[in-house]
């Protein structure tokens, strides 16, 4: 259970970063950390004691395997995460050009 709690703490740190940081890049980092914690959480779920890598092989006895489904899901999630981060970074670099800084506090034209 401690693993899950640590995972949750990692999530909270990421969240805290997103909330408290003023710098766009650091907000993105905080967001990425949140994402890591969720990814890790799913893999932790799928782990089974004394199970092997889910690859069928003739050389050694196959199974029991760890749950392959979360791994398949996470493979997708990692790619999605990469896509999101790339997009965020490209927006950040554009924002830097427009505002001359990475400070999110200055970006409040849209309010009210």
């Amino acid at each position: 259970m401690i693993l899950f709690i640590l995972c949750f703490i990692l999530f909270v740190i990421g969240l805290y970063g997103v909330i408290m940081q003023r710098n766009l890049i650091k907000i993105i980092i905080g967001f990425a950390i949140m994402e890591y914690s969720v990814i890790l959480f799913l893999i932790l779920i799928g782990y089974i004691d004394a199970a092997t890598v889910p690859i069928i092989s003739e050389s050694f006895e196959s199974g029991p395997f760890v749950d392959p489904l979360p791994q398949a899901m996470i493979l997708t999630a990692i790619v999605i995460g990469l896509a999101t981060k790339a997009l965020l970074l490209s927006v950040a670099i554009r924002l830097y050009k427009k505002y001359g800084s990475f400070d999110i506090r200055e970006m409040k034209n849209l309010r009210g």
Partner: protein
Amino acid sequence: MIDFQMLIIMPIVIGVVLFLLPDNLKIIKGVISLLISAYTAYLSVMVFSLPHQFIATLGSINWLYIPGFEKFMDLKVDGLSKLIVLFIGIFGFLYSLYSLSYNRRRAPNSEPNHIPGNYHTYYLITLGASFGVALTDNLLLFVFLWGLLGLTLYKLIKGHNEESSAAAKKTLVLIGASDSVLILGIGLLYICSHTFKISDIHLGTTTTLSTVAFLSLLIACMTKAGAFPFHTWIPDYTKDAPASISAYLPASLDKLLGIYFLARMCMSTFILSGWVTLLLLIIGALTIITSVLMALVQHNYKRLLGYCAVSQVGYMITGLALGTPLGIAGGLFHMVNHAIYKGGLFLTAGSVEKHTGKEELGELGGLCKYMPVTFAAALVFALSISGIPPLNGFYSKWMIYTGIIEFGSGKGIANQLWMIWLTLAMLGSSLTLASFVKLISGIYLGRKNEQIGTVKEVGFPMFFPQIFLAMLCIAFGIFAARWVIPEFFEFTGIGSWKSLPGLWNAPSVSIMILISIIVGFIIYWMGTLKTSRRSDSFVGGEKLQQELSFSSLEFYKTIGTMKFFNYFYDKANKKWFDVYHLGKECVLGLSSALSVCHTGILSTYVVWVVLGVATIMVLLII
């Protein structure tokens, strides 16, 4: 047997067809609209001859038949709705005729007229929807058509400048709000009675639910008819809308329908309890007094007429609130009379406006020579609205006064206070007289203002409706006692006129009316006192008319400087008594408070999410 469903269907369908025609066929559209309204007027006369309690359904028209929908399409003709249908038909035709000429381009030197686009479409849809409102026996169809009326009302005023678009906005907001409240009321009514059939509902206003339902419906009626405190759209609307539309909707149809529905509620749908009666009487009295006080100080004649239109609603509500046969009959009779003379007044105002291009009393004067017919009609209407015998306004007011006195003999708080209602009603009548002396003298008497160019009498299409309505006023007045009022009782099924013989000859009421007329002149004279002295020193031995024309201008200042009134006028100018304005202030205040919270900072937003999740968790953990 006639297809009186066509009353509803045909104007709406033709209206939509006209919408599809190109806009530059204005005259053709006008003629089509006139023909349709003539046909519906004919149909409405036919409906008038139908037997009582006639039931039909809209769904009986083939192409409109929708399976499973018939029950929402019930129509029912009874005495009350017949009466309303007849007058809607007449007004629809007259005003359509009037519009033909009124909508044409004016004299080149005057301002462009502000006739909204697709005028005839909305005119006809209004007509059909009004017939529908009067005839339907299903609350859902009722609310649908009722809402449609609000929509056309909005589209029939052209927001050509800041002021008129503000008026349009205010109108739609108030009417739309009352429609929403109406929906709430109908929902509550359904809970109480488990039916949408109007004629099947008979509820006491004893439980909270039914009282709230009644109040919701009441608000809808009051807004539509224009009673205090929901009346504020009417003066704004009448000031900026075309005169034909002011006559058509706020002065005639909206009054007819609003009071019609109120009458239906008071007569059959609800059994009023003492408190509700008291509430209605207070509303009635307040409406009479506040609006007529406002009317006194207006210098735009269309606005003045708007305020007077509101004031008269007070009489109708008072009459209906009494709950006695005499009171209800008086209220309904007053409704009809009012629709006639107030519609007529707007028509005459429209004629004046079309030919002079002026809307301020101070810029006009002495038109009686140039527009004699209009002047004569206006005079009849003005005398009628002020309750001068033997015109129709006198008789309906008289019935209401008698009703109040009769009502006073009953037990209950509202009954005990009958003196107050009577006094206020009579005071209102006096003030109405005062304001109309001002109107007539301001426009028609006195010396002609040089700024106005040549003025001609209006053409036949405008001239005929005015005369016709004036004749109606006179006819209703002359034949009131012998024929109109007894028929009225018969028709609406309130009771028998002959059962109340003792009241007709009550001399006390006649004396009261006389007193109120005298008081009215005194008030007007008091108002002119100061200024005539000043104008004396200015013009010397000129004619009396000139003093009058001057004093009508200065009237506002005189009344306005009286200490007691001064306070209220001041507040009224700041819109303290305007429900719309108050609501607007509240909503905008709340809005800006919420808006401040949206700081535009991402961190805050994320914190909201976090707090939101936490709050939901806390709520669910318990």
